[in-house]
């Protein structure tokens, strides 16, 4: 096999590994929602154990990206891919971490009196889940429009996040003896919101691979936040 052929095969093999890691992340998210809805301790443990596997996938992909950069000095779209893979897997790994973070709170919640879940919680989770699915689909299908739509979906998650936070605050006032459970909900709420952010970051890199520019490089997100009183 010529050096160049080997290079192209390694590139596409790294690409496949990123897909595979994406698959694993989606599964972890689904398990997390299921574990939350059923307060399942055994599934929570499984999610946390599985995190090691995702960490090692990230590590291996990173190693291979570094090696291909050193040996082949990829340029143009090849380089956009390799650089983006390295950033995407970092965001993917964070999503998996947050699944484990949530699993910890699920275990805590399982040991306490059950209190009602905030109304929109599952909705927010589903939007985040859709963002992740669409991000990976935009990646496999090279679809920058789909990637853009994921980035826009993040606003919806932020709205849910604020609503749910207020809802939890109200529940805490009404039901102060169960405040520990509500605090846990609050954390989970934040983790889900962060997972959506990471999905949007990945979408950003997909957009970069296809179009060669970062869509939200200079996000005015915090400017908007800082302008509101």
């Amino acid at each position, binding site marked *: 096999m010529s050096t160049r052929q080997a290079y192209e095969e390694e590139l596409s093999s790294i690409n496949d590994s990123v897909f595979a890691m994406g698959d694993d992340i989606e599964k972890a998210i689904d398990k997390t929602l299921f574990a939350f809805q059923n307060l399942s301790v055994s599934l929570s443990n499984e999610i946390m154990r599985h995190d090691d596997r995702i960490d090692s996938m990230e590590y291996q992909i990173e190693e291979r990206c570094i090696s291909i950069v050193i040996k082949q000095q990829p340029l143009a779209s090849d380089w956009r891919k390799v650089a983006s893979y390295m950033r995407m897997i970092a965001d993917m790994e964070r999503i998996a971490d947050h699944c484990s973070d949530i699993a910890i709170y699920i275990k805590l919640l399982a040991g306490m009196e059950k209190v009602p879940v905030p109304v929109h919680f599952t909705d927010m989770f589903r939007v985040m889940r859709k963002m992740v699915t669409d991000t990976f689909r935009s990646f496999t299908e090279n679809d920058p429009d789909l990637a853009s739509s994921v980035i826009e979906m993040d606003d919806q998650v932020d709205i849910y996040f604020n609503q749910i936070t207020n809802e939890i605050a109200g529940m805490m006032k009404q039901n102060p003896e169960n405040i520990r459970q509500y605090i846990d909900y609050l954390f989970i709420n934040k983790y889900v919101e*962060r997972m959506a952010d990471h999905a949007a970051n990945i979408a950003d890199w997909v957009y970069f691979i296809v179009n*060669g520019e970062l869509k939200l490089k200079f996000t005015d997100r*915090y400017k908007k936040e800082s302008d509101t009183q």
Partner: protein
Amino acid sequence: MRDRNNTVEKWWDDSMMESSVQVMEKIAEHQSAQDPASGAQKKMPDRMTEMKPAAEQKFSVKSLDLHYGSFQALKNISLEIGTNEIMALIGPSGCGKSTFLKTLNRMNDLEEGVTIDGSVKLDGTDIYHNMNAIELRQRVGMVFQQPNPFPKSVYDNVAYGPRIRGIKKKSTLDETVERCLTEVGIWAEMKDRLYKSALGLSGGQQQRLCIARTLAVEPEVILMDEPTSALDPISTMKIEDLATELKKKYTIVIVTHNMQQANRISDKTAFFLLGEMMECGTTQDIFLNPKNKKTEEYISGRFG
């Protein structure tokens, strides 16, 4: 709430927040006082439109065709080369990049069977119709692939150009030799062997001597035709450093087969293929996000 900006989430207490907000407001006030336009959101400069105005273009080439007999080596090339810029010309062998380089100081118009159409302007003056070759070559120097010092001493090599231009005064020539050898970074090595033959130098030293010889006639543009392809990596690095240093005073056009070299040192890159210029843009755009499919294939090693 994406923290790409690494903004610390609001864990700090309000008093801390207030003071930093006040500081930021002061900075904002200060900025808007200096620049009345900064009230509106400042637009980021667009790399593609960041071309220099016409007055700052050193070379302006329009619709250039070149034939060797019936073979057309350059097809309708139009290209602007900005002052104090390094322009890299890349492309596979036989694509016309060296031919193009030579047209910039008329190295090929006297060759038999060569016909040239279109215009090549240096600071707005047509070099084929309104400038003599002697003036042109004083203003536009050239460095070749193989170091080609004259079989003379180091000193005589550098002093050659000024002497031809009629400078005889020893002190002036001494100054020129020292200035040029200093500019190319070999004065310290050469000052004790100025009167020994240049042919005894290493390849890298010879190439830098050739650049010094070019500088001695105070050119505005330096053309380099694969100046490092015969040199080892260390000498190559020195020539690259030198080019980056020289661009502060001169405009540089470099033909190179070494893609990483073009990427490292040039501001703009033009890609040639089969006598046509396929794409020209900022080096970053060419190497990160080329618009032309052929450019993409070439620089990512898929052909050529």
